[in-house]
C-alpha cells in the first residue's frame, strides 16, 4: 500500500474511556468487546447509573467475569437482534447527558449506532472500540444489499451475486463499506481472493 494512504471516511475506533461528566452510562458490547467493558471497570466504577448490554459470542464469552465486576444494570443477551430490541427500549428512557459506549465487530458497532441514530444520538456522541475481528459489512452499490462479516478483499454479494471489490470508503448512514462490481469491464476476470480482514 502506498505511503500516506488514508481514506478519510474510514471510521477511527478508540479504546473505551468513561466520560466522567456523563449523567448516565450505556455500554453495549459483543463477544471480545466484553474485554473492553472489563477494562473500563478496571479504570473506574462511575458514580452515575450504568447499563451494560452484553452478548457473548462463540469466540469470546466474558459473561461470568462481567457478572462479578459490573455492580448493577448488566443484562446478558443471546442474539444481536435481542441486543438491538433491548437497546431500543433502554434508549426510550434515557435522558440528556447519557453517554453511549460500543465494543464489538464493525457489523455490531454500526447496527447499534443505527438504533442510537433514531434517538438523535450523533456519531460523535458515541464511543466505539473495534474488537475481535476486522470483518466488514459491505454495501453493494448495485443492488443495495449488505453482506455481513466480510473478511476478504473480494466477496460475492448476497443480494445480486456479483463479485464485489471491498473498498475502504465507508458510509456511517449505512454502517458499511462500499462494494463495487470488480469484473464489470472484463467478466470473469478476478484477482486472487485473499483474507485481509481476519
Amino acid at each position: 500500500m502506498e505511503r500516506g494512504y488514508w481514506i478519510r471516511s474510514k471510521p477511527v475506533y478508540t479504546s473505551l474511556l468513561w466520560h466522567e461528566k456523563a449523567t448516565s452510562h450505556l455500554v453495549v458490547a459483543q463477544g471480545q468487546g466484553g474485554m473492553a467493558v472489563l477494562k473500563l471497570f478496571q479504570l473506574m466504577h462511575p458514580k452515575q447509573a450504568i447499563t451494560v448490554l452484553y452478548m457473548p459470542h462463540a469466540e469470546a464469552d466474558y459473561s461470568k467475569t462481567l457478572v462479578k465486576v459490573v455492580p448493577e444494570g448488566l443484562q446478558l443477551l443471546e442474539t444481536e437482534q435481542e441486543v438491538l430490541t433491548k437497546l431500543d427500549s433502554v434508549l426510550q428512557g434515557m435522558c440528556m447527558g447519557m453517554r453511549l459506549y460500543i465494543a464489538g465487530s464493525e457489523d455490531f458497532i454500526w447496527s447499534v449506532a443505527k438504533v442510537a441514530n433514531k434517538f438523535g444520538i450523533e456519531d460523535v456522541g458515541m464511543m466505539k472500540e473495534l474488537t475481535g475481528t476486522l470483518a466488514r459489512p459491505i454495501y453493494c452499490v448495485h443492488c443495495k444489499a449488505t453482506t455481513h462479516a466480510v473478511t476478504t478483499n473480494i466477496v460475492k454479494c448476497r443480494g445480486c451475486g456479483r463479485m464485489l471489490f471491498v473498498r475502504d470508503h465507508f458510509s456511517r448512514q449505512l454502517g458499511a463499506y462500499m462494494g463495487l462490481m470488480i469484473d464489470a469491464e472484463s467478466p470473469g476476470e478476478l484477482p486472487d481472493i485473499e483474507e485481509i480482514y481476519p
Partner: protein
Amino acid sequence: MALAFKQETFRNDYKYSNSPSAIKRFPFPFAEDQYMYSVNIEPHVKGKQGTVCEFPFDVDEHYVAECLDKQITLDLDRGRYAVLPHMMDAQWDFVELTMEALSNDYPEHFSLKKDGLNWTWENKPLNIKQSFVFGDASTMPMDPFEFMSRQVQGDFVLLDQRDETLYADGGFVTSQADWSLAFNVGMSWREWHAPVPRATELGVMDRALKYLLNLQLGSPVRRLNWTMTVNPRLDTSPENYPLWGTERNTVNPENVADKVHLRVELQSLFRLPRSNAIVFSIRCYLMSLKELSSYPRWAKRLHRVQKTMHPDLIEYKGMTKFHPMMVEWLSKFDDGSAMDVGTQPE
C-alpha cells in the same frame, strides 16, 4: 431568444449532439497546458450574453431531453433521490431559488405567479402547471425539492451546515461522475471527498470547505470540474457501472473521436435564506472529441493537458483504457507552438 429543444437520448442508441452554437458556448475548462486540482472557485456572477454563466441556472437545447433522462433514471432507481427529514426548509429554499431564477431569466418558457403564499408555477417545455401553497408540502405532488430538481438540468445536493462542516443531507443525483448519493447521503465534507486522490494532500479540500462555510446569501460561487466519458451518457453512476463500464472496451482508434466525450461540470453553490443550508448544483456538459476539435485551439490544449496528466488522475477518472488513443488522436492538432493562457475557443 426561444430555444429549440432537441430530441436526444443519453443511453442505448445515444442520439446526442451539440449544435455549432452549443459547441461555441461549451465551458472548456483548460486555460493552461497542465492540469492539477486547485481551489478554482470564483463568484457566480452574471456572464456575457449567450454564455453558460449568463444566468444562475443555464437552460440550453438539451433541456427537455435531459429532464426526460432524469425521469428514466429515477424511475429505475428511487435511491437517486434522498433527503433527510430535517432539510424541509432547505427544500423550500430550493424551490424559491429555482422558480424565481428560471421565470426571471427564461420568461418565454417558465412563469411564476405569486399571491401571498399561493404560488402558481408553469413550465411550458415540460408541460407542467402547478398551484401550491409555499411552505406547505401537502400542496405539492411530491417533495418540493424533488419537484424542482426534476425540472432543472443537472444534479443537486443540499448541504447542511453544522459542527464547522457541511453535510450532504439531501440530493437529486442522476448524472453523476461515478459517485453514489445513496452511499454518500449524510456524509460530512471530508468523508465524501475521501476517495479523491492527491486532493487531501494538497490541502484543496480543507481550503474549499473554509471558503464555503463563509458563503454569503446572494453571492453564489462556481467552479468547473471535468472528466472524460465514453458515450454521451449522463448516468455514469456506480450503481449502473456494470452497464456503462463495459462501454470503455468499445473505444478503438477509428471511433475514439466520436465515442470519447469531454464531460464538464459547472458546479455552483448558493447559500439558502431560511435553512442556512447550501445548494450544490452540478450541471453536466458533454462534447465529443470530434465536436471539440471544430475549434483546433481546444484540441491542441486538450492534447497537452492529457499528455501531461498525473497517472493517479488518469486512473481515478477512469481513463486508463482509452487514454493513449485519445492522446494520439489529439496529437495531430498540436504543432508544438506556445499557447496563450485562456479557455477561449479561437
